[in-house]
């Protein structure tokens, strides 16, 4: 009879795990509020699912990355793994002694010395004094704090703090190590040291659950990864593939702001077809920013081009984070409620009677490449001003039929002398 090896127990297993948070808009957290609440009923509570039906397994000895945008549920997931939070539903199994580094030096007391903090921190994870004493020398050596170990940690630099925190973590011989973004601190040498220590742990079969915004770190350090988006697990697989997927997702879900139209308006803001040469030209640009996307980081440019294609004029501007919404009147005319409006006024429009192409361009200012997000075009017909001028341009002019005023000349002379 063949010996069948028992299937290796996974290190971490999530089965249909959901976690809900209840957001109270009017939070009642005191007796006072409670009494008030008896008279005036509490505002409706809103539910928020930080994680929804998440299932995955992390195998023993594997280095597993978690990627996703802010608010995707990564931190909630780590808190569930480490038992800081309990799931609202579903089953979580964690098989092995777990050490979580959700923050370097979490649980350090500033008044205590580095030495006392090592022991206190150890006991926070259920390690006895004896077990910590055995590791103490190695921790201090790793942290390079031999001289300062009896100094209260409140006097430590952030680097010393981080070294001690990390030193404790890697010397606890965890079977499962949970790391959240903590490698971002510290200098290059320290980071390299940390990665070497983590590689050692990997070689010894430690399961590592790793969260980082640094796509390259996940790519090079993790075996497999999971992609979270909006509280749901949308992909699990080899780290390379997941990071690629994550980067595609980042681009896809970039907020899409689009241009609806650009048109001339009269001084009251009503759309108009008639633009008179020499008057102020008021233009209105309508943008659509769906689902409350902001307009920060976007540039708007207006170009005027004549019939022959000659570039007449260009005005660029950076949009503020919160462009105002279009007025009620405009919205009633059939525009979506998420329409925002930008206005441009060119005073004393200097073109004589002609037809001009009006081009509005929305660009992305972020990053190196200024890519065009959207473009909208329309035509305006400029009506001649009611005067005697002719030609391409309508320039401000004034005839003077008198000889120069002698007083002006005197005035000028006085001014020059005054200097």
């Amino acid at each position, binding site marked *: 009879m063949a010996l069948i090896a028992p299937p290796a127990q996974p290190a971490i297993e999530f089965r249909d795990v959901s976690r809900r948070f209840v957001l109270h808009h009017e939070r009642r957290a005191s007796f006072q509020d409670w009494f008030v609440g008896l008279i005036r009923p509490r505002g409706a509570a809103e539910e928020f699912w930080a994680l929804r039906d998440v299932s995955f397994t992390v195998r023993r000895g594997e280095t597993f990355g978690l990627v996703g945008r802010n608010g995707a549920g990564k931190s909630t997931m780590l808190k569930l793994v480490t038992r800081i939070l*309990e799931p609202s539903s579903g*089953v*979580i*199994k964690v098989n092995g002694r777990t050490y*979580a580094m*959700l923050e370097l030096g979490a649980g350090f007391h500033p008044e205590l010395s580095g030495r006392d903090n090592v022991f206190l921190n150890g*006991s926070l994870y259920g390690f006895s*004094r004896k077990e910590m004493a055995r590791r103490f020398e190695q921790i201090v050596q790793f942290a390079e704090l031999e001289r300062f170990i009896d100094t209260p940690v409140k006097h430590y630099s952030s680097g010393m703090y981080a070294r001690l925190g990390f030193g404790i973590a890697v010397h606890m011989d965890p079977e499962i190590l949970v790391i959240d973004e903590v490698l971002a601190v510290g200098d290059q040498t320290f980071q390299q040291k940390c990665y070497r220590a983590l590689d050692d742990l990997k070689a010894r079969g430690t399961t590592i659950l790793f969260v980082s915004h640094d796509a390259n770190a996940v790519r090079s350090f993790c075996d497999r990864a999971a992609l979270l988006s909006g509280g749901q697990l949308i992909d699990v697989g080899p780290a390379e593939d997941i990071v690629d997927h994550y980067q595609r997702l980042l681009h896809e879900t970039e907020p899409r702001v689009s241009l609806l139209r650009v048109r001339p308006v009269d001084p009251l803001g009503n759309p108009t077809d008639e633009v008179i040469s020499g008057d102020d030209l008021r233009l209105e640009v309508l943008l659509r920013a769906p689902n409350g996307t902001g307009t920060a980081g976007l540039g708007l440019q207006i170009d005027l081009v004549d019939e022959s294609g000659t570039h007449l004029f260009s005005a660029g501007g950076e949009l503020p984070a919160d462009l105002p919404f279009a007025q009620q009147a405009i919205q009633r005319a059939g525009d979506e409620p998420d329409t925002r409006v930008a206005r441009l006024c060119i005073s004393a429009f200097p073109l004589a009677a002609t037809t001009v192409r009006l081009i509005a361009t929305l660009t992305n200012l972020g990053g190196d490449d200024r890519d065009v997000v959207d473009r909208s075009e329309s035509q305006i017909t400029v009506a001649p001003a009611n005067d005697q001028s002719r030609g391409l341009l309508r320039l401000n002019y004034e005839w003077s039929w008198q000889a120069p005023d002698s007083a002006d000349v005197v005035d000028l002379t006085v001014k020059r002398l005054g200097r």
Partner: protein
Amino acid sequence: MSRRHGPPPTGSRNVVSQAAEIFRYRSLIGNLVAKDLKVRYKSSVLGFFWSLLNPLLMMLVFTFVFTQLLGETIPHFPVFVLIGLLSWNWTSTSIGMGTTSLIDNASLINKVYFPRILLPISVVASNMANYVLALPVIFAAMLVARMEFTPWILYLPVIIFVQMTFLVGAVLILSAIHIYFRDTTVLVEVGLTAWFFMTPIFYRVEDVAPDYVSLMYRLNPMASIIAELHTILYYGGVPDPFFMARTFATALAMVVIGYVLFNRVSKHLGERL
């Protein structure tokens, strides 16, 4: 170590496995107590003597007010009042600090998992250490007053144990309530002041309100505890074992209530802080 959480199929994680977990984390209580004492005394011996100053000054104030101004005739009044004051200090500081112990450690609770119940318990423990360290002052005062030491002094650990049990129950209940009602602290503060005067620390209930003697001992465990301390230390008399047994039963009931309440609340601790 395998664990399973979420809505469990049968009941909640049982008391035995929780007790085992607390036992595994026993070094944490020691370290939390050590941390507390070190921070409080700033790691110096002098710091500890400073902490004795408060009850000694209180003793002087009470002695002056009651014997000189109010004509109190209890003999060896300073010793009498010191016995009650030190015991009361343990209670009032434990309850004051214990009530807020979870909120005070919110950042820790959000970063590291450990049995949260150890936070309020360690408050009681560190104040107990403080109390025990201050006991020699009582003995010194008794020596100065040439009072008699009887073997019944050995009964002291029993009384301390009862008080500890009572305080653990009290802080479990109050810290759980404090999560939901942050103004619990205000009520606790007023409550402690009222409780102080309703406890026979600087008077003998038998002298002041003979009609209320049994009622007070029934309703106020601190009255029983301090009365018993007076019996064995101040009077050098024989303690009544049933008296402490009744108080212990009350204390135990509070621990049970506190434990159940705390467990229900601690599930939601992560989002409530």
